[in-house]
């Protein structure tokens, strides 16, 4: 008989507020079920409720059955035996969920239940074989490293090894890939799928991005506002007559290709051999090697590359927030005026002071103007980003991530910019919100003639938004060409990998 993890009428509430209501579903061993839904829909709460680790102030009701055994009625002791051994977890930020002072080996030993004195020796082989299994080599060396000495992809693999250590029957994976770049994401996804099939594990895979799991999930469960609104085998998810929320997610994840717009001939910004070296020593590795590039009016430049490849550095140079150590940035356009450049940051929540009203934060851009004029400008900017004016009197904590990101754009618009640099501005958002922001940016481009620099590690975003693509690899601009050329015949190996990763996740569905 196949093992089964089942939850019946599972509700989570905080006080009298229902955060998750009467969820019902099942996960069998050997099956990969994706739970998709927008941010805040209750996906994480579902996994925490199942494994019995809800924060203290939250209360769960309903039944959780593991092979017919009621988990919700188990004591803490019994649950300690189940967690990690029969059900384990994967998390979004592997580095944040590992103890920064312990080595990978120590983490694995803990998961093996072998963290006592002197047990390390006996389990050394097991540790090494686990690391090799997830493709971390040389295992011996990696085992001795601490989390901060690993790259993001390696850390996520190590996380998987930890989750697999005690040979669990089920894994609850809470967005394990959303912080990875496209190439790593596809690697880790494939690894997870392979392990899941080899070991016959049941995986509950949480994501907001349908595109990324469409080829590996067996079934998809759609959550919205704390309720399971839809579930079906993966193939049927693209059908037109599914639940409205399902359609919304599908459309956001699998956008059509746009036809690129012709750019102005006017050059607004030019980088001439601009490079940056943060360390004082000239010999140290440069964060950005000398790079030359031109930005025209109305152009959308997509910048892509792995973490640490110098994308943000380049953006900061363009925006004039950092002085290049070599070369220069020419910020004047043809009639001699300085180009106005604005940057939209990645994290919507941290770009507004949590203590201040939105209005006060926004007024930073216009506080030199007389009050009335400033008010008018703000109202105008709010209209441009399609938000109601009353939002201005809220605090950041009272707004959603998508709203905040729009507000950040509105604030940037107050300075009347010609170029907007969006450094990972959508990567903290769910796919639906992401799509809305990108649409807004493109609309602004069309209506106001803004130039955009869209920086992302997510090829889907680049493909959707950009006219031209610039690829950074180890601090160097290795490829710069129009989108279609890039998709068709990229030259650099890294570019090819990027395009390949895109193919895995984004083959346009046949059912449409």
């Amino acid at each position, binding site marked *: 008989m196949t093992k089964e993890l089942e939850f019946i009428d599972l509700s989570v509430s905080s006080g009298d507020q229902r955060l998750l209501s009467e969820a019902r579903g099942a996960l069998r061993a050997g099956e990969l079920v994706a739970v998709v839904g927008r941010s805040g829909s209750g996906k994480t709460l579902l996994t925490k409720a199942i494994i019995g680790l809800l924060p203290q102030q939250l209360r769960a009701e309903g039944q959780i059955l593991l092979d017919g055994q009621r988990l919700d009625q188990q004591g803490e002791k019994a649950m300690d035996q189940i967690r990690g051994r029969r059900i384990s977890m994967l998390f979004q930020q592997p580095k944040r969920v590992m103890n920064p002072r312990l080595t990978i080996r120590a983490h694995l030993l803990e998961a093996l239940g072998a963290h006592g004195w002197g047990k390390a020796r006996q389990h050394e082989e097991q540790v090494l074989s686990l690391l090799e299994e997830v493709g971390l080599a040389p295992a011996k060396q990696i085992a001795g490293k601490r989390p901060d000495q690993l790259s993001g992809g390696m850390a996520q693999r190590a996380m998987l090894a930890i989750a697999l250590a005690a040979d669990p029957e089920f894994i609850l994976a809470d967005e394990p890939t959303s912080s990875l770049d496209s190439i790593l994401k596809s690697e880790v996804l494939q690894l997870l799928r392979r392990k899941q099939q080899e070991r016959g594990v049941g995986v509950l895979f949480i994501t907001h991005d349908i595109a990324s799991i469409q080829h590996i999930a067996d079934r998809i469960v759609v959550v919205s506002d704390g309720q399971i609104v839809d579930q079906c085998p993966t193939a049927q998810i693209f059908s037109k007559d599914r639940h409205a929320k399902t359609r919304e997610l599908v459309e956001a994840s699998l956008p059509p290709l746009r036809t690129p717009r012709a750019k102005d001939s006017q050059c607004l910004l030019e980088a001439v051999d601009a490079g940056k070296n943060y360390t004082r020593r000239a010999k140290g590795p440069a964060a950005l090697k000398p790079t030359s590039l031109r930005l025209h009016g109305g152009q959308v430049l997509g910048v892509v590359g792995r973490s640490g490849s110098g994308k943000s550095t380049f953006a900061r140079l363009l*925006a004039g*927030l950092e002085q290049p150590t070599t070369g220069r940035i020419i910020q004047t356009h043809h009639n001699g005026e300085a180009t106005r450049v*604005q*940057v939209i*940051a990645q*994290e919507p929540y*941290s*770009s*507004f*002071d949590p*203590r*201040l009203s939105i209005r*006060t*934060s926004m007024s*930073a*851009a216009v*506080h*030199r103007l007389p009050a009335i004029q400033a008010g008018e400008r703000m109202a105008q900017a709010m209209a441009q980003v399609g938000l109601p004016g009353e939002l201005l009197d809220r605090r950041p904590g009272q707004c959603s991530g998508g709203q905040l990101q729009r507000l*950040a754009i509105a*604030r*940037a618009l*107050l*300075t009347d910019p010609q170029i907007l640099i969006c450094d990972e501005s959508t990567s903290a958002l769910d796919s639906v919100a992401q799509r809305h922001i990108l649409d807004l940016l493109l609309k602004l481009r069309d209506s106001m003639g803004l130039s955009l620099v869209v920086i992302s590690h997510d090829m889907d975003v680049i493909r959707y938004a950009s006219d031209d693509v610039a690829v950074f690899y180890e601090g160097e601009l290795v490829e710069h060409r129009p989108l279609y050329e890039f998709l068709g015949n990229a030259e650099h190996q890294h570019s090819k990998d990027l395009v390949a990763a895109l193919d895995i996740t984004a083959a346009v569905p046949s059912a449409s």
Partner: protein
Amino acid sequence: MVYDMARNHSKEILLAPPACILLTVVILTIAAPWISPYDPDAQSLADRLQGPNLSHLLGTDALGRDTLSRVLHGGRFSLSVALITTLFSLLVGTALGLLSALRGGWLDELFLRVNDLLLALPEIVIALLIIAVMGPGFFTMVLSVGVVAWTPTARLVRSMAAQALSTHHVEASKHVGASRWFILRHHVLPFVAGPVLAQAALRFGLLLVLLGSLSYLGIGVQPPQSDWGSMLAEAQPHAIRSPWGLIAPGAAIFLISFCVTLLGNRITQVLGGQDVLATEAKAEAHD
């Protein structure tokens, strides 16, 4: 913001028991010349070292002076020195802390080294030095304690301001052209104000105890003036026969210091922060 939060919660803060006790004691000491039953210096050698009784509610001291009257009058001195010292260190500390955080560079380095030095130098040495120059008295006490007392505030302000300045939202404000003043006023001060106020309350309590210790050692307030610390010193030899002389000023120091600390804690809680002591703890961790 801190201001309107404080306004919204002022009732909650002011009606809490510590605030009530504090207010009562402060009013009593301010009103001491009018309400105290006796002249605090009037001796009656026949009535020395009495326990509490109807004519002397807290008994009398070794010279037959009324302990209650002396506690009330002594409180004027103790509280005002502590208050002035606290205000002094609050102003100086905030100014220097902000300057150090905003200017950075050599100024900041200098600030850190001065802090290290003051932290390392036994405070009694500094007090002695200043007392040697100025002779004992009110301003000497303020100065000798104030010279060091500003450093915790400054360290707290510096670290909080630096923390505030390094946030993404300040960077975002700068990008869109906010002036220094705008950032200071909207992003830094409100962030710093709560913890600093709470810390000031805590510091007031600590300074009250510290100033008392100077008087206790005989290098603080000098007779014929007296404060709670010197009353303790005078009463200690008679403690076995007449513990009231020890208990009354000791309890006064403890009560005020305790209430003020609780009040500081209340402020931070209302502002949604940590325990006051925790902010003090943070301020200790310099660099």
